[in-house]
């Protein structure tokens, strides 16, 4: 470790001291996580977990927590809102809750959708019982750092048997400045037995200066629960986005989580799913559009702890220019977890010669009656298909974009929340040459 990075950690210390001086129920957890972060240091490419994510620029940046007084107008967020569906909206700017831009609305009886900062005081029991239980912050420096600085974000609690009809939409807005800032938004989603909820997180940047966004979301789902979770990453061109998701689920519970990595300098999507009940399904999906010099790292771990569970990992990467991606899918099957059915898929579409792909499945299986399959593909556009479309009157670039879209669409076509699916379609098409020609897909259905 260099002296520089040590200095950085000392810099965090003064900010940490301010936070920990606040006391409160999380002071102990923060202290422990902070100490852990100091022990771990910034991850290096020599270690296993960050082998393909270069954190040196982050370690070398003189990061500081953002000041709370940043102005953002509603108009700047328009393109990020979900249209045509009521939402419970929470907006955070540089990690700080913004009351004016938020619109939580009313939630059905018993449900809580609020700021984590409020919940730490009002729902101390729930927060302390669950916070930090779904992720391995003791071994991941960024999760440790987020936990050390846990202060605000989303808290939602759905009591047993309640279906929250409308999606919760959390916007993490980052407006970077001359000095590199860092934010550590946290979300804790607790859904009790038989509950149902949808949460959409949008991480959006309003500026291209360097900065670190380090969000961690935890989903604690009881028995017979259904949760749909989405994270859309549209950061500024200079943003390092190191995102973490932890989920733990009980018997008969179904959790879908989908990460759309669209914009940012570096996007890491770390997901840890723990199937801690029987007959569960963890469905993790992701799409990455990787152009310029962007690097996207999908780093997944699924823990099968109990019998008869299914897990699906379905990740597609589209690379152009000098983009690069890595995919690590680790499946761990406990001795007890018989009849596990785990499928891992990573498909890469290369649109340029210089793009780079790394993909590695990792299996650790201690049960004997399991089905674990993995498949990775790296391919280019089907030239015969492109010619077919082209020969029917569709322009060369548009034909290629249509095929590229088709590749991407398989990740999002099952999204039940229609306004979100349409939004994702638009976001993908916007990023493809002549994608505008291909709009109006919905009108044909």
């Amino acid at each position, binding site marked *: 470790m260099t002296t520089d990075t040590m200095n950085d950690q000392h810099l965090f210390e003064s900010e940490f001291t301010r936070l920990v001086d606040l006391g409160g129920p999380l002071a102990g957890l923060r202290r422990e996580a902070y100490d852990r972060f100091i022990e771990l240091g910034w991850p290096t490419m020599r270690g296993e977990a960050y082998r393909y994510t270069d954190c040196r620029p982050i370690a070398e940046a003189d990061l500081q927590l953002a000041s709370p007084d940043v102005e953002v107008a509603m108009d700047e967020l328009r393109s990020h809102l979900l249209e045509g569906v009521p939402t419970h909206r929470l907006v955070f700017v540089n990690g700080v809750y913004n009351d004016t831009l938020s619109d939580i609305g009313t939630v059905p009886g018993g449900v809580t959708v609020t700021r984590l900062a409020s919940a730490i005081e009002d729902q101390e029991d729930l927060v302390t019982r669950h916070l930090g239980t779904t992720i391995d912050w003791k071994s991941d420096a960024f999760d440790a750092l987020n936990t050390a600085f846990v202060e605000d974000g989303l808290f939602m609690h759905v009591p047993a048997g309640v279906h929250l009809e409308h999606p919760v939409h959390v916007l993490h807005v980052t407006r970077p400045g001359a000095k590199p800032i860092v934010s550590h938004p946290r979300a804790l989603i607790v859904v009790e037995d038989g509950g149902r909820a949808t949460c959409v997180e949008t991480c959006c940047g309003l500026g291209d200066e360097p900065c670190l966004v380090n969000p961690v979301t935890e989903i604690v789902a009881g028995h017979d629960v259904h949760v749909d979770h989405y994270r859309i990453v549209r950061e500024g061109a200079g943003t390092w986005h190191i995102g973490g998701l932890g989920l733990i689920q009980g018997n008969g519970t179904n959790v879908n989580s989908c990460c759309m990595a669209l914009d940012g300098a570096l996007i890491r999507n770390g997901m840890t799913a723990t199937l801690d009940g029987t007959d569960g399904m963890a469905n993790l999906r992701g799409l990455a559009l990787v152009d310029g010099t962007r690097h996207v790292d999908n780093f997944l771990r699924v823990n099968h702890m109990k019998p008869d569970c299914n897990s699906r990992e379905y990740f597609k990467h589209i690379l152009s220019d000098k983009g690069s991606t890595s995919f690590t899918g680790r499946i761990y099957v406990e001795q007890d977890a018989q009849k596990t059915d785990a499928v891992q898929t990573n498909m890469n579409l290369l649109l340029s010669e210089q793009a780079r792909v790394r993909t590695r499945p990792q299996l650790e299986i201690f049960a004997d009656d399991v089905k674990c399959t993995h498949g990775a593909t790296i391919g280019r556009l089907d030239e015969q298909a492109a010619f*077919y479309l082209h*020969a*029917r*009157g*569709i322009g060369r670039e548009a034909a290629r974009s*249509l095929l590229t879209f*088709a590749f991407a669409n398989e990740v999002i076509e099952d999204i039940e929340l229609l306004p979100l699916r349409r939004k994702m379609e638009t976001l993908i098409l916007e990023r493809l040459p002549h994608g505008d*020609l291909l709009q109006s897909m919905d009108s044909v259905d």
Partner: protein
Amino acid sequence: MLQITNLHASVEGTEILRGIDLTIPSGEVHSIMGPNGSGKSTLARVLAGEETYEVTEGSITLDGEDLLDMDPDERACEGLFMAFQYPVEIPGVSTKYFLRAAVNAVRAHRELSELDAYEFLQLVKEKAQALALDTSLLDRSVNEGFSGGEKKRAEIFQMAMLDPKMCVLDETDSGLDIDALKVVSDGVNALRDGNRSFLVITHYQRLLNYIVPDVVHVLVNGRIARTGGKELAQLLEAEGYAGIEAESGVANGA
């Protein structure tokens, strides 16, 4: 309508079309017959503009316009349609969506207004009915999981939708049973309007009982070895290609 003059084309340095001259006047149906490997599909693909095939000599014009100067999409917009011998499956692209994009691209080029969703679906209904095509196929991805016959019918359906002036059909009969053959032929015949021209490529004479050609050309080893009326097709059916091959001096594929 279509004029091909001294056309030479090669793939990866091997010459496949070795000097083809062919003129198809407006409203006529010409057929190209020939043994496997004689270059029929190559000719079709060169007409459509596939870049794997390099045109080394000669010219192709469509209504006097230089076709070789146009990209494949421009050729389609100018009214050339090629029904593929092996239509490619395109997972993830809905047939309806693709077809609407294609129809509107062609219409825009012809300075016609864009079809809205309703008008488009009306047109789909009308054309699909004529071809006894199950419209639920159109909700599927392009050609994906279609049976051989469905693929061929879908090609003719697309042809009807795009309203071309020059239709090239590459072995549209292959893989069709007699009923499907009739449906497809009826579909094609319905499009014969005295102006539209057809180039019907086939290995067997059978199709030409249903789509009766004005002129039959026999392609052997990249050249047109003989041209005649529809009775030439019957002759070939009876005698096979061996005679013409021998006569043209080159055993095909040698």
